[in-house]
């Protein structure tokens, strides 16, 4: 199935009932901040056949690592739906996520890196 077909199907599903594709669940298995970057694991692409269409779309999308917010936007599903799908895919080993950064504000050394990155844009 092509990306276009997958996305079209997701879009139709979503119009019907957004949380149908998560089995009605609205909370992911793990804490996934909106900026969490998701990447497909080498095993993930090899295990596509075990997945439903929606999860397959996430795995194919995240071959190019991207944030939870991007997954939701690109697949036209609400944020929480993307979270639940990704949470399940982390558990099954199809995708991996970066370690969440400290829950408080970023520290000075990280801010310095951000500033340097902005300066060189």
């Amino acid at each position, binding site marked *: 199935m092509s990306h276009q077909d997958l*996305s079209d199907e997701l879009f139709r599903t979503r119009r019907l009932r957004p949380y149908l594709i998560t089995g009605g669940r609205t909370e992911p298995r793990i804490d996934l901040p909106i*900026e969490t*970057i998701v990447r*497909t694991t080498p095993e993930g692409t090899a295990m596509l056949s075990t997945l439903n269409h929606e999860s397959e*779309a996430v795995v194919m999308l995240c071959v190019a*690592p991207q*944030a939870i917010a991007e997954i939701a936007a690109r697949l036209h599903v*609400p944020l929480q739906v993307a979270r639940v799908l990704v949470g399940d895919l982390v558990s099954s080993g199809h995708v991996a996520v970066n370690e969440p950064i400290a829950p408080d504000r970023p520290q*000075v050394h990280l801010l310095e890196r951000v500033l340097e990155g*902005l300066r060189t844009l």
Partner: protein
Amino acid sequence: MIWRNDRSRGGDSTTDLATPGPSDTPAPPVAPHSAPPLPVKIVIAGGFGAGKTTAVGAISDIAPLTTEAAMTTESIGIDRIGSGQSKRSTTVAFDFGRVQLSTDLMLYLFGSPGQDRFRFLWDELLKGAIGAVVLVDTTKFEESFGAVSHLERSGVPFVVVINPFDGNLAHHPDAVREALDLPMTIPVLVADARDRNAVKGVLMALVRHAMACVTARPG
């Protein structure tokens, strides 16, 4: 692939194969299975029409994307929008973009509506954020009050930016500072949200301010 040909937003010649159709802009190519960059985020706040999406789009590597968040049952209780509504009945759409700062650092910029009733989204976006930029439309000061109060209460570093529409600076920064009752420690800047360099300058000012806040933090 049909979607490649009917994209209306031009200027992006990426050859990335992993992005599906309906989004407007494919993700820039990233080596498959490489270590993903560390994400950091900044929230761009402001009332309707203040230029949030314009500012995000001015500096983002991708054309701004839109997603929607559903209000949780708990938030609905706080918000008093009806009672007994299902979770998907109240949603808010918001735009965002991203800027690759280095091979191992990705900055996400989230535009957030300033209204109090979208507080649930605010809290989510501000959690762990570097800080926030409040875009002020000087013809509608009152739309900035909610965002400024909320940021002051939550202790999130922020800067206030006057977006001079059509080059017309309706209010001097000092007047804006006074109108919003901002202490001298909060930077008030003037920047055209359409101008990439101006937006870059604002983000750098915010990061510097955030660094000063960290340094000034007791303990």
